[in-house]
């Protein structure tokens, strides 16, 4: 993506404190329209906190987040989703007791073509038409992520990797302009990870900007257009994968540790 594309998301001098504890000191970066941006940093650097601030699950103690210029301050997570921001979660990415189809249908629940509550209760034509359209959309999305064989199975019974795919389908059902992925490949094997990299690229090719938090460095280096590195709640570097690899601050904070320590950290992240 071109470096001077307009920012879709601006994280503007955001800080988060829990009592006396500083989770994010002063975070400032932009995500440009159509890019795949990764947020990296050692454990406790504030990545997940940043995610929770952007998606409205946490209120920042200072600064603000803007989506295409609109301030997200004070908005609830569901409002933020309506503005075009979707996310996946690290651990629980699905509704475990619903089928894969119903999972995606929950993501499609707010389709504006949908009928009113009374129309739904009395099963009037508009509700039936809306329901048929939603089911068709859900089927297409499930096919697209490659889970058509699992469409009628309980999401909780699926493998870890498959649940992540359901999570992505669910997030995409809300037709976001930007998707935030929270450690999507942790716990996946190599071939699942490769599939997921392809998936992320295809999502981007549909015009969805991607913000990724991930510990799997080879995967991050492969998939990202740009990387932002955090340490101790502060931004320490911002650049292409090659620039980040060579950045002395990053090497010191993150890559500078011995290979063994890095490996241990990755193990911990996968656990």
């Amino acid at each position, binding site marked *: 993506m071109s470096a001077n594309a307009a920012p879709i998301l601006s994280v503007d001098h955001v800080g988060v404190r829990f009592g006396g504890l500083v989770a994010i000191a002063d975070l400032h970066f932009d995500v440009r329209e159509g890019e795949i941006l990764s947020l990296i940093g050692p454990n406790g650097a504030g990545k997940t906190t940043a995610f929770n601030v952007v998606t409205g699950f946490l209120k920042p103690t200072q600064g603000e987040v803007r989506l295409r210029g609109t301030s997200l301050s004070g908005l609830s997570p569901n409002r933020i989703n309506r503005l075009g921001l979707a996310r996946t*979660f690290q651990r*629980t990415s699905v509704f475990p007791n619903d089928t894969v189809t119903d999972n995606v249908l929950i993501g499609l629940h707010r389709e504006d073509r949908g009928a009113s509550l009374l129309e739904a209760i009395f099963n009037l034509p508009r509700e039936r038409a809306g329901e048929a359209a939603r089911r068709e959309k859900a089927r297409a999305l499930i096919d697209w992520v*490659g889970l058509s064989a699992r469409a009628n199975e309980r999401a909780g019974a699926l493998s870890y990797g498959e649940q992540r795919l359901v999570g992505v389908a669910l997030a995409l059902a809300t037709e976001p302009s930007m998707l935030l992925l929270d450690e999507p490949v942790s716990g996946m094997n190599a071939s699942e990870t490769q599939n997921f990299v392809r998936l992320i690229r295809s999502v981007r090719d549909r015009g969805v900007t991607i913000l990724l938090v991930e510990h799997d460095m080879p995967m991050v280096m492969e998939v990202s257009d740009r990387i932002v590195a955090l340490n101790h709640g502060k931004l320490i570097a911002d650049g292409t994968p090659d620039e980040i690899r060579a950045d002395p601050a990053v090497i010191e904070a993150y890559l500078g540790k011995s290979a063994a320590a890095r490996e241990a950290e990755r193990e911990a992240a996968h656990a």
Partner: protein
Amino acid sequence: MTRYLPPAILVVLALLPLVLKDPYLLNALITGGIFTIGAISLNLLLGYTGQLSLGHIAFFGIGAYASALTTLGFDIGIFGDFRIVHEGWHPFAGFIVAILLSGACGYVVGRLSFRVRGAYFVIVTICFAEVVRLVALNWVELTQGPLALTAIPQMKIGFPGLGEITLRTKAQNYYLMLAVAALAYVVVARLVSSRFGRAMRGLKENEQLAISVGVNATRTLTVAAAISAAIAGAAGSIYAHYFRIIDPDVFLFTYTVTMVIMVVSGGKGALAGPVIGGLIFGTLPVALRPYMAPEAQWIVYGAVLIAILFLMPRGIAPYLDDWFASRRRAPARAPVAQPQLEGQP
């Protein structure tokens, strides 16, 4: 074949008064049925949104009082000489007022109490019901307090071509109960299978994820609470016009517990759950009466509640479901396909 089961059961229940002439049994069925309607409405909250509301009887009682007072009329002082005087209306108007007022109360209470979750939500809902009971007890000018509202007119329903019928006999009231129960069942069934119901289930299973995909938690839960309360209000109205006397004891916690037992034993989050539970616990008092005093029966109910929670925490309905499912052949698990990823879905 489960699709044909609910209408079949409805037909059986509709034919029951033709063979069952004993007024005591019919009375027990009507009473049990009225509380089953309450249980069907409670299941919407308990089973589908996962919110353990233990103040549900408040909406039932509000419906009963609203319907009775709309029909009887009242004359109360508000400030100084300012009085509100209401002449009695048609009982069916009382039924409608009961539904609307209970629904509105459900909306307001939901709006306020869904700000807390878990144990605190449970406690707030119980407190709400108790406050309403104390108001009914102490606002003597409106409710007659412990003296009870008496001589509540019987329900009257106009049928096109038949004229107006006053429901005097037990069998007539039984059919009214059955009609409202069937309607409540259908409303809940339609609601939970619509996109609104999916949003509710989403909130129950994983609230964070549901909000993150745009589900408005407060609005969804509040709508569920309002509909649930409206149905409970309808049940309360039938109760008032059938027994023709109500006192503040209709708000007692034990009635909420009755509905909770019906839902939990039958299976919360299953449409058939409160119906199964209602049939069991609606008829159990009749079965136990020759052998036990009422307080001994309550010991049995408490024990059954505990036993069900220990032995089959999901209730009876899921076991019936499994049984029906096991009679069909389970499809084999298909292999995973590669992601398709090309083109726009």
